[in-house]
């Protein structure tokens, strides 16, 4: 090879994509030509860097499929408008059918890829329910849940009479507003 190979040939050579005869000829030229050797070297470095630069961003297949489906539908509707409601030729129909089938297939793949994994809730070993009296009232508590009947309408905490009876607890006081005796009970089952 007396003349320098073109840049495209050198790029293909750098990527190992030339046929065997042409590769042998370029190889001989590059071995003797420092200018072309430098150019091949630059192509090689660039090629090494390209995969990093060109790495595709994370794709939401569901979103992509939805957009594609919407675009296809839009295109079909636009076509209908342009045709003015004329009957569709078989050839065109086949293309549309293919597009729809393709998008459905894409949707299916997207669904399979994005299929949500069923969450398994952790099994909580809850503390058995218990009854308790406090200054504010009586409560039945089970794990992190509770129900408290409050003595807020008693005149004073000392005016409340508590009694534990079997699986129930009772608080009795006179409601300061109504004057009636109120008896609150909570039960643990």
């Amino acid at each position, binding site marked *: 090879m007396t003349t320098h190979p073109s840049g495209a040939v050198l790029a293909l050579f750098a990527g190992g994509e030339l046929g065997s005869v042409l590769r042998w000829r370029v190889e001989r030229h590059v071995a003797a030509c420092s200018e072309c050797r430098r150019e091949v070297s630059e192509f090689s470095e660039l090629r090494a860097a390209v995969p990093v630069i060109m790495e595709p961003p994370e794709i939401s297949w569901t979103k992509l499929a939805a957009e594609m489906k919407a675009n296809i539908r839009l295109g079909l509707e636009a076509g209908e408008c342009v045709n003015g409601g004329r009957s569709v030729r078989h050839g065109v129909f086949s293309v549309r059918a293919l597009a729809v089938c393709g998008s459905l297939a894409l949707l299916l793949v997207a669904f399979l890829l994005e299929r949500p994994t069923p969450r398994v809730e952790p099994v909580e070993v809850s503390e*058995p329910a218990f009854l*308790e009296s*406090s200054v504010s009232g009586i409560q039945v508590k089970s794990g*992190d849940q509770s129900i408290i009947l409050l003595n807020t309408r008693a005149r004073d905490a*000392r005016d409340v009479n*508590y009694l534990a009876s*079997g*699986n129930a607890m009772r608080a009795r006081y006179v409601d300061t507003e109504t004057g009636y005796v109120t008896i609150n009970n909570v039960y643990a089952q």
Partner: protein
Amino acid sequence: MRSKVAGLILAGAIALCGEETKLDPRTSIQINFPPDSPVLQLSTNVDESRATPRGGAVVVDLHMSLSLRNAGSRNIRGVTLLVTAQEVTPGGKASVAVPSLDVAPGQSFPVRIDLRLLRPLQAGGGPLVRVSLDGVLFDGFDFYGPNRLNSRRAMTVWEMEAQRDRQHFKSVLAAAGPEGLRREMLDSLARQADRPRIDVRVSRGGRAVSSVGSPEHMARFAFLKLPDSPVEAVDGWAGVAANEARTPTIQVVNRSSKPVDYVEIGWLVKDPQGHEFLAGSVPAAEGDLFLPPGRTGRVLQDTALRFSRNAGEPVSIASMTGFVSQVEFADGKVWVPNRLALQLSGLLRVVAPSPEEQRLAEIYRTKGLNAVVEELRKP
């Protein structure tokens, strides 16, 4: 379904707002009275009720004021409402009872329900609280209601105690005049103030409350014998470890001529310093006891009780005493100790006053002696 959706919307609103949310009574509370109920619901006010997020949970402060009317033909002596919040405590329930009433037909009366729920933010939909009628007691001990909480017996006991104590104070008024009644009222208020109190925590089954790290021993009950009691407690024991007692078991004998199907034993505990207090009561399990005359039976509760005072200071158990506090016969009639027996046995200073005595003492404290005299003159 609509209420479920509304409940979910409420939970969502609480979560999004991150602050107090006013409760909507239409979606957060469900009130069901039977169609033939002798008590009608006139109005419901929940204006002060709030839901507040706390971490992954929500605290619901429900302050409900119900206005009810006696739609029957007899005076009402007591009402019990059943309150359920199934999503909070599966199987857990509560009730609010108002005894010592005297509501004539056509009259209205208020019932207040104040409760606090702590539940997960993500809990399912549906009303937070359901309120229904469990029972109404009329003059002459007639009863109406589903009685799911055995409110018939409880309200009958309160009414019998009320009649007993009203009769006592009427006798004092007749014998010693207003000044004698004043002394009785002052004595009642003093007893209520001086009555030893204790905090109790109850859990079902064995030693589930806590591990006290102290060896358990079987402690025997001593018993107070009340002269006219139709049932006598003859033996009893409980597992005791430091400030915990579990599975009280008491043998009783029916000394009356009528079959008995329910007995409740009052349970007194004395600490090492000699302070005696009412620890609770041991009721016979529903449907478990049937005592023909002369027969012996057993009252047993599979519960564990832990005693403390002054916000957690354990109270050790030195000794235990039991007494028969109520008996229900198979015909539905109820026995309660008489006033003299309570006084002579010393129980009057340990057990809580009856609801009626508590009400009369409060009338004396807030309105004076004449108001009590006027109250006692009512039939």
